[in-house]
């Protein structure tokens, strides 16, 4: 019995099983993805709200997912670590915003730690601003995100709250691609560049308000509206799936992202009282 012998017990799935599952998935795709289109006006309305929402939910949407959601991408904005697809169209199965929505993903998991734990054990991710808007208090629960339960962390997430429950969240991720774009055009399908550690891709509607700013001299992109937050109420000592919620009002709030010092930062604020200047000041106070 050699090692290959262990592989000899593989067998092909039953054709009936393979076919029936395929039929089930493709029928689902046809009915949900490619059913009749919405009227143009409705689609345009969706485009802004839905795609802003997707962006703001904090989900890094892949080009693959982008293509699954949108039919036409009319522009692409890129910086290291962030690619923004601008679209004027969207498939019908894109999530329709209905006020606050919750979502869950198993593509990465997290465990809660304290800011002190993070500083001691994962100093790379312990990058806190020295200035925050008045009344906001750093919460004792910080999320440490992993791609899988045995791996090394990929990002951390801090949050501040004021006495009304308004929230600011800061995600600190490993930097992205030191040597160029995230996708190797000549590489095998689905392979990212080997030297990339993280990239974030987002989709927005054509009318989304985007601004290109600088944070301490580094380029940054700021978006208005449609923010979403990670839910940090998971269990202590357990691996929790990524859970989040979209804002109650998709037109409120803002978020910005930039790269600095080998890290990608994302700062999100829902509060109506926080200004763009506040967000920028907070970002620039990160040493």
């Amino acid at each position, binding site marked *: 019995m050699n090692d290959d012998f*262990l592989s000899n017990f593989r067998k092909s799935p039953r054709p009936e099983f393979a076919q029936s599952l395929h039929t089930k998935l493709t029928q689902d795709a046809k009915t949900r993805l490619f059913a009749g289109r919405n009227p143009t006006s409705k689609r345009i309305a969706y485009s802004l709200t839905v795609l802003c929402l997707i962006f703001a939910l904090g989900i890094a949407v892949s080009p693959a*997912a982008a293509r699954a959601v949108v039919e036409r991408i009319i522009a692409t904005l890129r910086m290291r670590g962030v690619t923004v697809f601008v679209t004027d169209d969207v498939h019908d199965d894109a999530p329709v915003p209905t006020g606050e929505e919750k979502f869950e993903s198993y*593509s990465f998991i997290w465990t809660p730690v304290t800011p002190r734990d993070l500083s001691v054990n994962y100093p790379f991710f312990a990058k806190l601003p020295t200035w925050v808007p008045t009344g906001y208090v750093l919460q004792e629960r910080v999320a440490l995100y992993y791609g899988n339960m045995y791996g090394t962390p990929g990002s951390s997430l801090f949050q501040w709250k004021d006495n009304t429950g308004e929230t600011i969240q800061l995600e600190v991720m490993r930097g992205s691609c030191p040597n160029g774009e995230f996708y190797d055009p000549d590489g095998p399908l689905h392979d990212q560049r080997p030297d990339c550690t993280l990239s974030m891709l987002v989709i927005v509607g054509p009318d989304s308000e985007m601004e290109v700013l600088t944070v301490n001299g580094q380029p940054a992109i700021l978006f208005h509206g449609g923010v979403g937050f990670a839910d940090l109420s998971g269990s202590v000592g357990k691996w929790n799936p990524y859970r989040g919620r979209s804002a109650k009002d998709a037109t409120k709030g803002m978020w910005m992202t930039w790269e600095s010092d080998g890290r990608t930062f994302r700062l999100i604020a829902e509060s109506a009282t926080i200004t763009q200047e506040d967000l920028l000041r907070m970002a620039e106070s990160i040493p």
Partner: protein
Amino acid sequence: MTDQLRFFGKSLVPAREVDWEAAYQADLPRLYNFFRYRVGDDLVAEDLTAETFEKAWRNRHRYRYDLAAFSTWLFTIARHITADYFRKPHPEVPLDAASQVVDDETVESLIQQCSDFERLSILLARLTDRDRELVALKYGAGLTNRTIAHLIGLSESNVGTILHRVTQYLRSAWDEEKP
């Protein structure tokens, strides 16, 4: 300003898609065999394979391309589904039936009646959960040591070492327990 202009100066770059058809064709047998080696039952493996694809399909918008290759994501879901499967209670042989089995037939004769895969499943069931998962990923799904290492968070050399030890054990046990 130069940096800002650079953002907008880029022309449209076609996005690369997850080709679901290709992914299905490529990953269905790998997932199915991963589950076969993991649970030792073809029908259960079919159920778990279907559950994995359906879950992946439902959550396709949440797939983070930036964190993992698609197949890695799929196997991450598969591992969660496996964990759920083992957490749930499963029908067991009634005590009476079990005692009758022991009375009527020895374990050795039972093994002799099994197919080779059933024999292998009996041996795999003696492994630790982690070792059985490694075998399922390597020999069931046919993943490389590097991919397995990425998937479960061990170093590549560690994966190779563990698999070498496990296969030596299986080889030895297989030879010793020939029907």
